[in-house]
């Protein structure tokens, strides 16, 4: 009795008991679809996060003054410090950063929106991985002239100016220290992560303009992208030393590797995936018991058939194989349906939280493999029970 025969026989038997087959598969369907749904969201999220981090120049350092140290005004970072760091051979692009929250007037003049005004230079586009949609980013002259120009995201542009072309229009900003008007020179593509993590909307203005308006000469931090990623740790130490030499102090600067942020996000997502896999393993185990249970019922119900088949020359192996194939089909079909259901669930959930779910071929192959294994593991006992039936006893069984 070959595989095809067993397959046809099993399929005939399973389709003869559709309701029962579907209910039996349900445990496995739920287990597998949960795995696919969560991992597709997890992988989608991971891809989005990694994509965002890799756009941030792939390797970035954030230089800031250590909190809690006895910091005096001479230790604070300045635009000149940013220029100094630019001289480091491993520095790809450097941007000073001074940020503050404020509000911006929307299309309806009585409505305002909270904005995070980021003072920076032209390099920040590369440092932060921004995709420009219209116009341009900040330019060198903007900083030299303390120009009142601004780059906003396209969603904000819509809320502020409707369908009109935002380039050249005026944004009315209000800060704790007063009001300012900016001319929009460019719009950028909002990131998926921004809306996912409820991050504030960023608007970019020349750092010098903000410093002048605010009456401050120092910065919050300096962003440095490195050329050689493998030397990033050494570069961090060297940048810190450069600043200490210039400010004539010691160890007051903190140089954070932003890639570590990516690692920690990946760690969290990895933890979630492990947890979900554990839950899925339990549900697959329960599903497998369901398969075993129904196969035992099937063997009892079909004892007479087994007797007939044995009288016609079926070996124990033939019978065992027939029932094992049935269990595997049951489990593997549950797995396949689970994959489809999980993918649909992932799409729905992903749509709701604005993440593009991603299902890898490896995941699908692994899932099919696992569900087939569940069929084998939980099908062996009932199949062996069927194989061991005494033909005379089985023939007598009605």
């Amino acid at each position, binding site marked *: *009795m*070959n595989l095809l*025969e067993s397959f046809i026989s099993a399929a*005939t*038997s399973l389709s*003869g008991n559709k309701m029962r087959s579907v209910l039996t598969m349900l445990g496995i369907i739920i287990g597998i679809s949960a795995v696919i749904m969560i991992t597709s969201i997890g992988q989608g999220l991971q891809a989005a996060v990694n994509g965002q981090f890799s756009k941030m120049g792939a390797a970035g350092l954030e230089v800031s003054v250590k909190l809690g140290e006895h910091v005096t005004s001479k230790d604070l970072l300045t635009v000149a410090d940013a220029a100094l760091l630019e001289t480091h051979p491993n520095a790809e692009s450097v941007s000073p950063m001074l940020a503050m929250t404020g509000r911006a007037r929307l299309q309806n003049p009585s409505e305002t929106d909270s904005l995070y005004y980021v003072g920076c230079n032209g390099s920040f586009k590369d440092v932060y991985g921004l995709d420009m949609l219209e116009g341009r980013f900040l330019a060198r002259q903007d900083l030299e002239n303390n120009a009142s120009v601004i780059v906003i995201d396209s969603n904000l542009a819509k809320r502020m100016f409707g369908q009109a072309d935002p380039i050249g229009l005026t944004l009315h900003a209000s800060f704790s220290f007063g009001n300012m008007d900016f001319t929009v020179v460019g719009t950028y593509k909002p990131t998926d992560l921004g809306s996912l993590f409820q991050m504030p909307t960023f608007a970019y203005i020349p750092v010098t303009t903000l410093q002048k308006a605010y009456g401050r000469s120092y910065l919050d931090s300096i962003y440095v992208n490195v050329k050689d990623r493998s030397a990033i740790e050494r570069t961090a130490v060297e940048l810190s030393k450069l600043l200490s030499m210039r400010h004539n102090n010691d160890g007051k600067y903190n140089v954070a590797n932003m890639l570590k942020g990516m690692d920690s996000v990946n760690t969290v997502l990895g933890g979630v995936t492990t947890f979900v896999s554990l839950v899925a393993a339990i549900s697959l185990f329960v599903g497998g018991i369901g398969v075993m249970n129904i196969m035992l019922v099937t063997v009892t119900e079909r004892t*007479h*058939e087994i*007797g*007939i*088949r*044995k*009288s*016609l*020359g*079926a*070996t*124990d*192996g*033939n019978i065992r194989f027939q029932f094992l194939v049935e269990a595997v089909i049951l489990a593997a079909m549950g797995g396949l349906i689970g994959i489809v259901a999980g993918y649909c669930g992932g799409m729905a959930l992903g749509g709701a939280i604005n993440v593009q779910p991603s299902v890898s071929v490896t995941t699908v192959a692994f899932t099919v493999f696992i569900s087939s294994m569940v069929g084998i593991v939980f099908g062996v006992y009932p199949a062996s029970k069927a194989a061991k039936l005494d*033909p*005379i006893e089985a*023939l007598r069984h009605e």
Partner: protein
Amino acid sequence: MAGEALARDRERGEGLGTGAIIEARRLSKTYKVGRHEVKALREVDLSVAPGEFVAVMGASGSGKSTLMNIIGCLDSLTSGNYFLDGEDVSSIAGNRLAAIRNRKIGFVFQSFNLLPKLSAARNVELPMVYAGVPARRRAAAARTALGRVGLTDRGHHKPNELSGGQKQRVAIARALVNRPSILLADEPTGNLDSRSGEEIMGIFQSLHDEGATIVMVTHERDIALHAGRIVTFRDGRIVSDEKVAAPSRAAATGRAPDEFA
């Protein structure tokens, strides 16, 4: 078809040298029922020559069903020897016994024992499936076998779409399809009306005429009288073994004889 195979076996005359298809010597079977031992067969000697049509009679519990199970290689014996077609099968077990059932024995049961979900043709194909015959040859052989019992046009019917007599004819086609050495029939007319029973006996007789060896259990003397020899059991022993001088021919059933050909 079964006839040809049997004629071949007869010519070979191998094995014990007796030429018998069934050779049982001091066959005993004891069952344990709780603490009690039930002796179903007590040192039975039985020899069936190729081409014989033997009816086995006896009350229920006389041991005739046990004998059938042992002859059919479904059950093992407690002591004695059983040679099937010259081969000592007393000590064979498991999968090799399944192979012997598959190739040397064709069963016809009282309750037909067809698989209800399979068509008549697929039922007839089953023994060939276990013999490893390729699908195309199976289909052709099943058609021939169904033609042999006059059911050429019923191959695609499920058992529940067939009458009792037709079901038993499908079962006979299934029993014949692997060209077995013997046909074992256990009360083949027990679930049939007398007319259908006559039809079945007609088929058996025509198979017998072609040289098939048939062993048939029955408790009806009318049916037994279609055979050439009647062996009667009581309490696990053979109490009589008689030749039938003039076996009754199955009554014409209004079916042309060539329909069975």
